[in-house]
């Protein structure tokens, strides 16, 4: 069943159909929230708030203005921005146990530097980079979610990539 049919069903009283939408888009919402907050303890609450906001405002969704995914993504992004205003930026770090398990000792120091550099990028650049490069969302979808031109997203990703690549240059010279 496509998104619009599910939304119609929810609006007609079939509230359980919303679950299908949650399961379909929870990955997208978590990707957006994690690009702002990483492993912060607010991630799940914010993702939940995004879905509940969409649920409560479902009657206001206009399919002619864009996809449900984009609309939901915009809600998630707005919740994240509000949360950032309430409590300022938290580094999008990884959970400790995952960090320890996944990095060899050779990589650990380099990864730490990359994580640190990522954390110090301006939030717009960091979000664009993570959504496109890590979560593999199309530039156009990120542009719609962020409310900017697709070229702006490309530029943000490219600048972020260049800054992170600069960190790796000494490493690459050593390899060569």
């Amino acid at each position, binding site marked *: 069943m496509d998104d619009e049919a599910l939304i119609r069903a929810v609006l007609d009283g079939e509230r359980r159909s919303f679950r299908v939408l*949650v399961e379909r888009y929870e990955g997208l919402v*978590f990707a957006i929230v994690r690009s702002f907050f990483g492993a912060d303890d607010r991630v799940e609450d914010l993702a939940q708030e995004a*879905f509940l906001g969409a649920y409560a405002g479902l*009657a206001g969704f206009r399919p002619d203005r864009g996809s449900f995914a984009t609309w939901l993504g915009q809600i998630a992004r707005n919740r994240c921005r509000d949360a950032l205003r309430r409590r300022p930026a938290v580094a999008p770090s990884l*959970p400790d146990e995952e960090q320890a398990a996944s990095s060899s000792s050779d990589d650990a120091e380099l990864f730490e530097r*990359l994580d640190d550099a990522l954390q110090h990028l301006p939030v717009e650049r960091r979000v664009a980079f993570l959504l496109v490069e*890590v979560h593999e969302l199309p530039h156009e979808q990120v542009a719609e979610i962020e409310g900017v031109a697709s070229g702006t997203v490309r530029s943000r990703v490219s600048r972020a990539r260049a800054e992170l690549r600069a960190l*790796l240059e000494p490493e690459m010279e050593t390899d060569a």
Partner: protein
Amino acid sequence: MSDAYERWIERRRRTVDVPDGFADRVMEDAAVVESAPERVVHWLDRPWVQVAAWVAAFFALTVRMVVAGALFLSS
């Protein structure tokens, strides 16, 4: 771009996992949302507005016919 960069990206990709039972928790909270979503009906489409419009149109037509009849008889 180096392999280290790819390994770092790959490691970050592993953080996208959604916690178990997330959809259940959303649905539990949605069940108690007071403003449960409903289809928005434009006010012109509400049944009582439709009935009132028909009554008004019928009344206007009746008045016009009575006035026209009165004018005809008085001429």
